[in-house]
């Protein structure tokens, strides 16, 4: 006969994961769905929603938040949060009658591991405009690592300014390890993406259309950028300055399969460093980019004029108007 007060081993009760999902949003009950991992929250942003306000929790797509800034305050480091920004009709050639309020904010993404997605119908992206006059603003400053930003069209608003700034200063700002993809940076922007001592980022499948100064940029006098992958981007007529300009000793970057069209270089006119300029860098590998310039000989507007290599770079098979390159640009 068993003794009294014996604790019999009772099978553990396990609750099956239950994801009730969100009404009207198919797939949100899928445990392997949009979230980076299962504890992450999705915050919806739509400044065009009727009666929209930031005074709500933002997880119901029927009651979205008004601003990305408010959504960021609700995110937590590495929880796997997603900020889903709904499309708007503010694109410069759109009808402009419905849903015409653009994203018009200058925010700091200071939460690690956040995925910031523009939910857009097309390759252009969700319009996002800077607000500070005289080109002094930055739409999105990233100061924490491991973020993804995709699906936005940076245009309009107070023209000028910078679309995205990844800033790593080892103090309070650690903006790196991030992905910027499927974005448009148009002629209203001065700078598309700027990096400062920011490493291990991926920038791909973006279009930089006639940005006024730089497409992808790391400033002279700074701390460089390294180990970034910049590929499959399209640059159109970033004239007078540079499509991809990485200065201050930018090292070990991979720059490949980008297409850079420049009307001056194409026409044999001067286009000094308006293509890819990695002056002062080392050990970058730059390959299979399509460049609208001639191979060296003409001097003005040619491969050596259009581009500058770092001291120990490897530039392989970049395709010029009259054939693939076989040297680093000088």
């Amino acid at each position, binding site marked *: 006969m068993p003794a009294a007060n014996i604790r019999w081993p009772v099978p553990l009760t396990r609750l099956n994961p239950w994801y009730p999902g969100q009404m009207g949003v198919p797939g949100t009950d899928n445990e392997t769905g949009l979230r980076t991992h299962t504890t992450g929250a999705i915050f919806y942003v739509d400044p065009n929603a009727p009666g929209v306000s930031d005074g709500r929790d933002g997880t119901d797509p029927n009651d979205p938040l008004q601003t990305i800034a408010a959504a960021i305050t609700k995110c937590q480091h590495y929880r796997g949060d997603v900020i889903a920004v709904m499309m708007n009709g503010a694109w410069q050639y759109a009808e402009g009658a419905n849903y015409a309020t653009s994203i018009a904010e200058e925010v700091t993404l200071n939460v690690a591991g956040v995925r910031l997605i523009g939910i857009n119908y097309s390759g252009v992206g969700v319009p996002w405009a800077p607000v500070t006059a005289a080109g002094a603003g930055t739409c999105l400053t990233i100061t924490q690592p491991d973020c993804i930003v995709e699906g936005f069209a940076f245009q309009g608003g107070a023209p000028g300014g910078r679309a995205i700034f990844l800033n790593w*200063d*080892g103090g309070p700002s650690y903006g790196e390890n991030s992905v910027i993809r499927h974005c448009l940076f148009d002629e209203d922007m001065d700078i598309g993406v700027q990096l400062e001592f920011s490493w291990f980022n991926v920038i791909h499948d973006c279009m930089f259309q006639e940005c006024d100064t730089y497409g992808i940029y790391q400033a002279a006098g*700074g*701390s460089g950028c390294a180990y970034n992958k910049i590929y499959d981007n399209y640059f159109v007529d970033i004239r007078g300055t540079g499509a991809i300009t990485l200065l*201050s*000793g930018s*090292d070990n970057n991979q720059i490949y399969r980008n297409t850079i069209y420049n009307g001056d270089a194409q026409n044999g006119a001067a286009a000094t460093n308006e293509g890819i300029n990695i002056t*002062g860098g*080392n050990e970058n590998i730059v390959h299979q980019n399509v460049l609208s310039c001639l191979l060296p000989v003409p001097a003005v507007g040619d491969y050596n004029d259009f581009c500058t290599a770092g001291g120990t770079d490897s530039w392989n098979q970049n395709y010029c108007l009259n054939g693939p390159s076989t040297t680093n640009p000088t």
Partner: protein
Amino acid sequence: MKRINQALYGKMKTKLRDADAAMALVRAGFDTPKKLREASDKDIKEFVTADQLANVRARIS
């Protein structure tokens, strides 16, 4: 011993390919390439060897 920012040390170590020099320089406050570039040889020599200084100047120009 002054504590250093491990993230800064890690980046500087990778940049210089020299852990000892990175440790010494970050401890001394030269914790970004920008600061190293702006510092004089005289300022840096106090914390690293001549060879290490040459390496710094070669890698951060």
